[in-house]
C-alpha cells in the first residue's frame, strides 16, 4: 500500500508501506519525524495533520493522544500522533502533512 506525505520542507512524497506498520515507523525510517519516544505516546514529536477527507476514517484518538496534542502550540482539529496510527489496508492512499517540530 502507499501513503501520501508532505514533509516539513513541503516536498510531496509517495511512500510504500505495509499493513501493520505504524505511520510513525514509516516516517521515522526516512527521518521525517523525530519520534523520540519510539511510539510510547510520550514525546509528541510525531505530529501529522491528516487530510480532512481521511480524518473520520481513522480509529478515534485515545485520551492520552488528545491530551498531548491539545497542548502543542501548532496542533489543530486535523492533528494526530503518527505513532498511534496502525496502517491497515483500508488506509491505502492516506494523505498527511508532517507538522513542524515545536
Amino acid at each position, binding site marked *: 500500500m502507499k501513503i501520501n506525505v508532505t514533509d516539513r520542507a513541503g516536498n510531496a512524497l509517495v511512500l510504500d508501506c505495509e499493513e501493520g506498520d505504524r505511520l510513525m515507523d514509516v516516517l*521515522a525510517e526516512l527521518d521525517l519525524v523525530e519520534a*523520540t519516544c519510539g511510539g*510510547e505516546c*510520550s*514525546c*509528541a514529536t510525531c505530529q501529522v495533520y491528516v487530510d480532512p477527507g481521511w480524518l473520520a476514517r481513522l480509529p478515534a484518538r485515545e485520551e492520552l493522544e488528545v*491530551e*498531548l496534542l491539545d*497542548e502543542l502550540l501548532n496542533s489543530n482539529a486535523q492533528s494526530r500522533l503518527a505513532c498511534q496510527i496502525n496502517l491497515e489496508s483500508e488506509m491505502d492512499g492516506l494523505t498527511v502533512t508532517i507538522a513542524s517540530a515545536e
Partner: protein
Amino acid sequence: MSSAQPVVIIGGGQAAAQLVGSLRSQGYTGRITLICGENTLPYHRPPLSKKYLLGQLPVEKLLIRKPEYYQRLDVRVMLGCPVSAIDRAARSVALDDGTQVDYGRLVIATGGRARGLSLVPEHMTGVHHLRSKADAEALRADVFPGCRVVLVGGGYVGLEVAASLRMLGCEVTVLEAQDRVLGRSAAPPIAEHLVACHTRTGGRIHCGRGVREIRGGAAFSAVVTSDGEEIAADRLVVGIGMTPNSELAEAAGLACENGIVVDENCRTSDPDIHAIGDVACRSIGGDCLRLESVDNAIQTGNIVAADIAGADRPAATAPWFWSDQYDTKLQMVGLAPANAQWVVRPGDGDRLSCFYLRDGRVAAAQCLNAGGDFMVAKRLVAAGRSICPEQLTDSAMALRDL
C-alpha cells in the same frame, strides 16, 4: 577537511543510531562504521521493561530503524563484534578476532550493563537483570502466573519490571534499601502515587529494606532482608542500576569518572574521540552529569554529529524522561536536586504535577498522568519562565494560560 575522516562508532544503541542519521542529515559524506557487541541492529530499550516484556510489542517494532536504513545511509554495520581495545597512537580499534578498524574520529557509545548484586553466587539460576533484549526475553520465558518474584531495587527500570511482572500474574515483592523509591529523582508525592499504583494491584514494595543474604543451591530460593526476614521466592530480579561501559576508554588512557568524562561537545580528553549516551559524563556549566535517557542519547548524538560535520552545536534543550507503570505515565523535564522543594499542582483523579522553581523560575517538572501539563512544562522550563508558586497550585487556572 575534517568531514572526510572516517568515523568509527563503538556500540550500537540509541545514541549510535541517532549519530549515524544525524551525521548524514548534517551533510557528512565520509565513511561511517558502526561496530556493536550485540548481534542486533540498534533497538529501543524502553519497551524492554514495558510492552516488550508483556509480549505486547512484536520484536520487529523494537528496532529503531530497519536494516535498509543503514544501507541507504551507506553505513557499514558490524554486529556481534565487541571492540577489545582502542589504539590512540595508531588511530584504530581492535576487535576480538584481531581485526583492526582505522578511524579519523572515534565515537564511544557503549552504554552500560546491569549492575550485579555481589551476594548472588555465580551461575545461580532463577536470577535476572534487565538491560538487553536478550535479558527481557530470558525473564519473560522464566516467569509464569503465580511465580513469586523478589525484585531488588526501586528505580525506574525496577518498578517498571515489577508492574509488568504483576500484569503477567506474578507475585511481586520489591525491596528498596533507601527509605523511599526513586529517592534520587522523583518528587516525593510522585513516588508516593506510584507506590500506591503498585500496592493497589497487589504488588508489595518494602522501603528501607536491603538484602542481607541470597539463599538457594544451584537455583535461587529465598532472600533474607537486612532486617532478618526470609522471603521465599521462585525468581530474583536485580534492578540496582547500571555500570557505564567505560573500560575501553580507561584502558586507552582517557579521563573517566562515573563514565567517560566529556566536554560540552562530547569530546573526551582526546579531541578526536567522543563519547555519547549513557556512558558519557558531560560537563555542563561546571557540573558533570551522566544521564541515562533516550533524550540524552539523542541530544548527545546530535551534538557529536554537528561537531564532526563542522556545523554549529545544536541549541541546548532541557533533559526529559518518561516512565510507564501499569496505566500510569510519568513524564519529567529539567533537573532538580535530590532535596528539591516541590510545588504540587493537584489534579483530578490520578493526575498530579510537581514543579521545582529555582530563583523563581521553573527549572523542572514531573507530571503523572498529566501529559498536557508536561507539554506546557517543557515550554516553561525551556523559556526559564518566572512564575509565582500560587499560580502553579491554582488548578482552576489552566497551565497554558500562565
